[in-house]
């Protein structure tokens, strides 16, 4: 009984933090402030993970998300020097905000309506189809066990995914001016096309 109350209290508190943070992300004009709001949300989610007995995930959430991802984003914000305020008063696209609001409300509304009409335990799926959650074994071990059995294939694929991320970083970080000179036959070939002027105009 008591644990349930605690859980409920924690949930409500965290939900407020999460939603507040999320709201902040889209509300603040300064991307730095948005990033910091995002941190709040991520922390809130981490605590909710704890609330749901997902201790390991809570830790990873803090370490990876706030520790790596948000820091990376902040890094880039600093690097690009785009910590100036955005103009979010004017909306050049007609009806964009209204329709976006409809979409957001609609998706949320439908999903919420959906889960509430499932009835019973809100989920209709088979119980513990992969591996039952048990209090006998530490959370990490349970995750590890499934990670290396049922999801070992997925685990291996993430390796490929991360490799791509590394290669991507290398490729995108290359400066266009650093493009190596054309090979020997370059004398016979035309020089690389300059960027189209109209492209520049649009970007200005």
């Amino acid at each position, binding site marked *: 009984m008591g644990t349930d109350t605690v859980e409920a209290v924690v949930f409500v508190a965290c939900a407020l933090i999460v939603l507040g943070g999320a709201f902040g992300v889209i509300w603040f004009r300064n991307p730095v402030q948005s990033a910091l709001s995002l941190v709040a949300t991520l922390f809130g989610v981490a605590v909710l993970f704890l609330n749901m007995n997902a201790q390991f995930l809570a830790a990873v959430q803090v370490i990876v998300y706030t520790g790596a991802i948000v820091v990376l984003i902040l890094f880039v914000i600093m690097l690009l020097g785009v910590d100036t305020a955005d103009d979010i008063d004017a909306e050049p696209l007609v009806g964009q905000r209204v329709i976006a609001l409809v979409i957001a409300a609609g998706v949320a509304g439908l999903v919420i309506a959906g889960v509430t009409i499932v009835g019973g335990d809100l989920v209709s*799926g088979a119980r513990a189809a992969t591996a039952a959650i048990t209090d006998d074994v530490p959370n990490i071990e349970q995750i590890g066990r499934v990670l290396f059995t049922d999801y070992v294939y997925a685990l291996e694929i993430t390796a490929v995914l991360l490799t791509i991320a590394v290669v991507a970083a290398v490729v995108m970080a290359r*400066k266009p001016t650093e*493009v190596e000179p054309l090979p020997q036959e370059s004398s016979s070939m035309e020089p690389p096309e300059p960027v189209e002027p109209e492209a520049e105009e649009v970007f200005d």
Partner: protein
Amino acid sequence: MLGQIDGGGQLPAELEQLLQSVDATGGAAGVAEIAAPVVAWSALVPIIVLALGALLLLTLASLLRGRIGPGFFTGWTIGVGLVSFVTAIPVWAQVQGWEQSFLWWDPADSASGPFSTLGGAMGVDGFSVLLTMLIALAVVVCALVLSGFARREGDRHVEANVLLLLSAVGGVVMVGANDLIVLFLGLETLSMAVYVLAAMNLRRVESQEAGLKYFVLGAFSSAFFLYGIAMVYGGTGSTSLVDITDFLSTNLLLGGSSVLVLLGIALMVAGFAFKIAAVPFHAWSPDVYDGAPTASVAFMASVVKVAAFAGMVRVLVVGFDTFAADWRPILQVLAVLSLVGGALLAVVQTNVKRLLAYSSISHAGFILLGVEAASEQGNRAVLVYLVAYTFMVIGSFAVVSIVGRTGDAMHSVDAYRGLGKVSPALAATFTFLLLSQAGIPFTSGFYAKFYAVVAAVDAQSAWLAVVAMLSAVVAAYLYLRLVVTMWFVAPGDQTPSRGLVIPVSTGIALVACVAVTLFIGITPDPLTKVVDKAQPVVVQPPAPVANGTGDLNVDQLLGLLGEGGAGGAGGAQTPATGGR
């Protein structure tokens, strides 16, 4: 409520065993043995070849910097693609139960036929093996196109080749994904590499724009896709298609209890529809095709669609065939919108890359006809179309990459004026490929469209077939317009004054594409015979091996496979329904 077991979802026997063993040994040994999933290495070889090939290439290029050049990269990529293709052949043989002497290992008492491995995460059936081969070949052809393109653009880096291979890994994972999470990871692997490939031409600002648009929209739609998976997870209790089909065959989800699955399907369809560029999820594709380096476009137009459609068929037609009545209307609408929208928008284009982008949207509509049919006939149509489409579209973009000339910027229709006079061979090739896209007899495109229409008619969607044929007529107009421009219009300012330089590698790719298109066009029988044996199925994986030694040999595994396959019960073979 934890551990409470609902009447429908039985705890698998193995799991119970496992839990007992955990109880028994938990205290003393500290960590229980891990019941290692059965790994059919032979089936994994094509993927491993691609992945290791990419990593080795990256390593070699870094270590031997300056000593190996683009020629080596291309050769390596082609080699890897070919090896991957060749290693898929024994898997095909095994799946089809060919003469055992053909296999390089001794299958002894192994069972043949489709199976799944890695704890059911990877399905190996004719469908996945055929598409693996297709992707491997597409990689080879794309590498050829890329080679000529990169040489002209002066790009001497290795990354494009590496990304090509890694992206193909994602594609191959997708076509054999028996688990929604694996599917999602494959999709992300595939897409992530393609985002970079699109943004890679650092000289053209359009390229970065394409990359950014593709990325933002791709991330947006994969969030939807993932949310869909979450819904399905809640609705069925698992992300594994094996378990899902099993669960759905024993539990009738009606009314409220089906809502999670249905919402999940809708969201997943959104994700797929984005990848295949179905209207209204298509908007990225013209811009991205337009801006991205043309050689990359050849890849993204072919392999990405192949993988996405494969995933779609596997998830919808095989995994959720019990809900076919619910998702078929959605696909019908998507198909109609894509067919009509693609054709109408293509007509007004003046940029050939955009034009081809819209035409590929229209093609997607045709393939959707096959998926929508939710029948074996439909799957067949999808496969035939994918094979035909892959080579048509790679060939077409190979031509575009040549006509684009240095800087990759000459893509207006005007650049094709009088091409028949300036560069007859190239114009003839392009003409043939365009005619194939239009679906003229004696080209593969004809049969592709034919099977799609037949599948639709068979699945009681004759009206869809009519729409498809009408839109094909409209689309034919635009292909013919290009053909006319090439042959009957006098050369203009943008037409190359001299014959275009066709790089040898691109030339080979073009010859290959034309050859395949023509061959299928003349005698589709070999292809359809193969395709007939490539129906997707979901098979129970063999029971995990709890010996803990990890010393698994293939014979043993395949032996186990027999039991696993036989024990597949209702979920084992899932012939798609929805026919007459």
